[in-house]
């Protein structure tokens, strides 16, 4: 495998890791606050549709992004209503949200565009174009670092840079701010937060809404940056891979970055079986690579490679007790 192939492979790793990373961090906020979220998939899908649809109608990808985030946040609020206000089962709520998004996106797409559940292809300002970083052109001829900078680091959509910047930001919020302290506390022992005079419900809604915003960006990225338009079921299990990455990352922001990059690499390799064969000398089935994130997560969950301990109050609705 030559250097350029490697750069290309890493480049597509970054592209594929971006939505996983955003969704994973989204799940991190929610689950760190004690609200399990298996509805990441649905929120991403809804956001993918609404951002593409509104971008197509308005011609502006930014308005599209806003619409996508709104749709995702609306589903988050529904999840909050079910699991925080009405203390329902968070897993069942997540399942419902996934189906709601899967059904509604196609239904509305058909109603608005009549193109078999897809949006028109996005062009021009209705799509996120690659951003060329300063000096990318000039430096491209520098050996080694040149291609790394101009091909790998430069030339992604703005959402990619936002996603990567969200990692240190999440870390900072979680461990260096009052909000982060309270958020982590509410996922571990909501009674401690409640008796300290802080609203458990308020904190958990805040976490769920942040989760919605990040899922919204992830979905918008799928349909307005990675692809040029929405197609039915385009999230294609990414929400679940993000969930797997979250467990893999043991609910920590920097680990989330590495986990999603790893899973992104698997995705990139899936389309390049020739590269794998060239590197390790055997033909690896595409299906195996596709299933690898899930298999690795099961192994992690089984506790064979370190123990993944979820937030202690995760999944439990908060009920005041004497």
């Amino acid at each position, binding site marked *: 495998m030559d250097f350029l192939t490697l750069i290309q492979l890493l480049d597509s790793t970054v592209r594929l890791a971006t939505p996983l990373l955003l969704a994973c961090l989204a799940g991190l906020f929610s689950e760190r606050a004690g609200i399990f979220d298996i509805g990441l998939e649905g929120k991403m899908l809804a956001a993918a549709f609404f951002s593409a649809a509104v971008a197509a109608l308005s011609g502006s990808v930014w308005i599209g992004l806003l619409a996508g985030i709104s749709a995702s946040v609306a589903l988050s609020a529904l999840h909050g209503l079910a699991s925080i206000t009405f203390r329902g089962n968070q897993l069942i709520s997540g399942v*419902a949200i996934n*189906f709601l998004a899967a059904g509604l996106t196609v239904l509305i797409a058909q109603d608005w565009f009549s193109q078999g559940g897809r949006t028109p292809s996005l062009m021009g300002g209705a799509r996120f174009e690659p951003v060329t970083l300063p000096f990318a052109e000039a430096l491209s001829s520098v050996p080694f670092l040149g291609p790394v900078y101009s091909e790998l680091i430069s030339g992604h959509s703005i959402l990619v840079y936002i996603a990567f910047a969200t990692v240190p930001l999440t870390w900072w919020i979680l461990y260096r701010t009052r909000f982060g302290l309270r958020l982590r506390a509410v996922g571990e022992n909501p009674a401690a937060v409640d008796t300290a005079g802080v609203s458990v419900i308020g904190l958990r809604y805040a976490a769920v809404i942040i989760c919605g915003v990040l899922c919204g960006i992830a979905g918008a990225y799928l349909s307005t940056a990675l692809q040029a338009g929405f197609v039915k079921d385009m999230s294609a299990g990414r929400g679940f891979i993000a969930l797997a990455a979250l467990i893999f990352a043991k609910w920590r922001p920097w680990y989330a970055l590495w986990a999603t990059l790893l899973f992104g690499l698997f995705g990139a390799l899936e389309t390049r079986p020739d590269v794998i064969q060239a590197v390790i000398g055997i033909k690896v089935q595409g299906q195996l690579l596709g299933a690898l994130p899930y298999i690795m997560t099961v192994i992690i969950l089984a506790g064979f490679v370190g123990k993944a301990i979820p937030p202690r109050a995760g999944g439990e609705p908060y009920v005041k007790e004497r």
Partner: protein
Amino acid sequence: MDVMPKWAEVILVPLISLILAAILSALVILAIGEDPVEAVNLMVTGALGSTYGWGYTLYYATNFLFTGLAVSVAFHAGLFNIGGEGQAMLGGLGVALACLLIPWPHWTIALVAATVAAGLFGAAWAAIPAFLQARRGSHIVITTIMFNFIAAAVLNYVLVNLMRPAGSMDPATARFPEAVHLPTLHDILGTVGISFSKAAPANVTFLIAVVACVLVWLLLWRTWLGYEIRSYGKSEPAAKYAGISPVAITMIAMLISGALAGMMAINNVMGEAERLVLNAVEGAGFIGIAVALMGRSHPFGVFLAAILFGFLYQGGAELALWTSIPRELIVVIQALVILFTGALDNMVRMPLERLFLMMRRGDA
């Protein structure tokens, strides 16, 4: 202390949830510019207005009966099995192997063998998450989700690389031999002189599903094993005190659950497609969740809910055929049912409880 009488708990709460889901679905239909009344009419005629419609309704219902029972049995043990989809896929593989590898002389023997194979394969696929939950404490919801994806990959690999007949481009097995074709309701009812649509796929498996309902009911409420499953589902510390093994019950409940989900394959793979295709399950594993929630995990409730969803599926297909409403409407309705009967249960329950409390105070 119970605030609500039992009938309200068993009938009123699910009914109100269902009505709420129906109202919202109607609003969705209105929002996309169609007439809900017209839509319901079309669905009723399409699904229940002919033996052809009934044949499809019952065919779908059979799938949902199996997956709904699967989710219910796990629920009773306090386990949420989201893996019905993957277990049903593997069940299909079991059926395909049973039907293709052995030249059966008659469909009856083949059916027994295929049922056993489907159950075994489904149970095996549930066994790993069950074991990890029981022994290592790995969250079964997450592992069963993961196993759905792994099952899809396995099936894809097997169909593309191993079981695809030479020369075929389709990722599917060869057709099953004539001898293992199951009698449809047309064949069965024909023997007693009732004419039933020949084209509809409902088959003898429906009867097996009904028997499964009765057996599950007997298991849960009339055997000590069912008693142990329900006890464990209500309280793990109490179960331990009573000498009920959490590991054993987790395994047994999930094996039964997985076997039931797997047995769905005798309907869709053996009874209908008569070969194994990639997307044979078509989400029926997930619909099992909605069916179990709506049926309050009781086999009779599951039976009613499965018929309802069978109706929705067939009716939805008819709608898609005659109007511009896509089939995905059913997915929306399914989501709303799960939402209202499952996650938002308290939204219905809490005001009702307050109402009953007021009535009781009024009496006193």
